[in-house]
């Protein structure tokens, strides 16, 4: 049987998992969640069944890690996010945009209820069918479908430019 080196898994799925973590947690906590997800996945990888859906497996781990990161973030004092000085590049290269260039999107996502953000992330970003999102969130297919739709609608109203 052919076993892929874990590096190939990271290259193939790293971007999607990062987008999911960003949508659920915002750009800062997303990186901690991504790291914890891939460390846990690396640990368990040799036991992963042949033919398993790797992306769904990673998203399931990411969901668990997002909860951990969210909990530990909730215990930290609330920090006002740093805004770059007007006219500066905020410490980033001017050529490659950072998440800060989509402040509107983050602000919009932050206003969504957790459930809507999760439904959006797992369905629209990770591509899980609603039935699987429902299992992941301990909900029903109809409910997560509605959450995703409501969330998407709100995002489009608040931040149409980024989502066109």
């Amino acid at each position: 049987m052919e076993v892929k080196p874990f590096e190939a898994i990271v290259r193939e799925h790293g971007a999607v998992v990062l987008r999911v973590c960003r949508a659920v947690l915002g750009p800062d906590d997303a990186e901690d969640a991504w790291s914890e997800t891939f460390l846990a996945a690396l640990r368990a990888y040799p036991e992963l069944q042949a033919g398993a859906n790797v992306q769904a497996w990673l998203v399931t781990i990411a969901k668990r890690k997002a909860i951990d990161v969210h909990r530990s973030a909730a215990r930290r004092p609330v920090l006002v996010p740093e805004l770059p000085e007007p006219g500066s590049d905020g410490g980033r290269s001017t050529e490659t945009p950072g998440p800060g260039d989509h402040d509107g999107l983050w602000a919009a996502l932050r206003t969504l209820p957790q459930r809507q953000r999760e439904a959006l992330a797992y369905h629209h970003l990770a591509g899980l069918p609603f039935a699987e999102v429902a299992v992941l969130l301990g909900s029903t297919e109809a409910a997560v479908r509605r959450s995703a739709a409501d969330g998407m609608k709100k995002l489009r109203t608040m931040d149409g430019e980024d989502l066109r």
Partner: protein
Amino acid sequence: MSLPVDTVPDAGLSSALAAGEEQALARLQARLAAGAEQRDLLDVAYTVIDSPVGDLLLAATPAGLVRVGFGIEGHDAVLEQLAARISPRILAAPERLAAPVRQLKEYFAGTRQRFDLPLDFRLATGFRRTVVEHLSDIGYGATASYAALAALAGNPGAVRAAGTACARNPLPVVVPCHRVVRSDGKIGNYLGGSDAKRTLLQMEAAA
């Protein structure tokens, strides 16, 4: 409510969340490699360097350098072999390869004649391993015949087996199977191709 929610994954949302992603992923991959090393989860670390004999893949277990792969073998194929034979917990993690990279660069620059590195011979077993372990008895700039190598390995009759062991040496360049040539003067086969073997022999002869 008729919302366009059936596009999966949503292209607009995906691209908006992908901003700055390449830099973030590069940073995260380095962080993953460091975290994996720290937690003893990195069974095989690898990196790729360029050299006069083409791109070389260098892979190490915690015990030492375990594989040197030539470009013509296909690095992806080599990594898949390592996944199957050692462990799929494999990451690009150049830090563990720092000493082999430095010594190989010195070797190719002509300033190093012997490698002083921990080596993990687990990919060569039995008589093949005995042969591979004796390859380093052949000094820099020298050559030996397959028959002489078989004798060095303690089995003068096993000339063919010695040849096979050289052909499958998991640590070429570092463990000098390129110094074994045919007794009729022909250069003989080499995992990295006969041009690579000739390049190494000429380089050593000129030093």
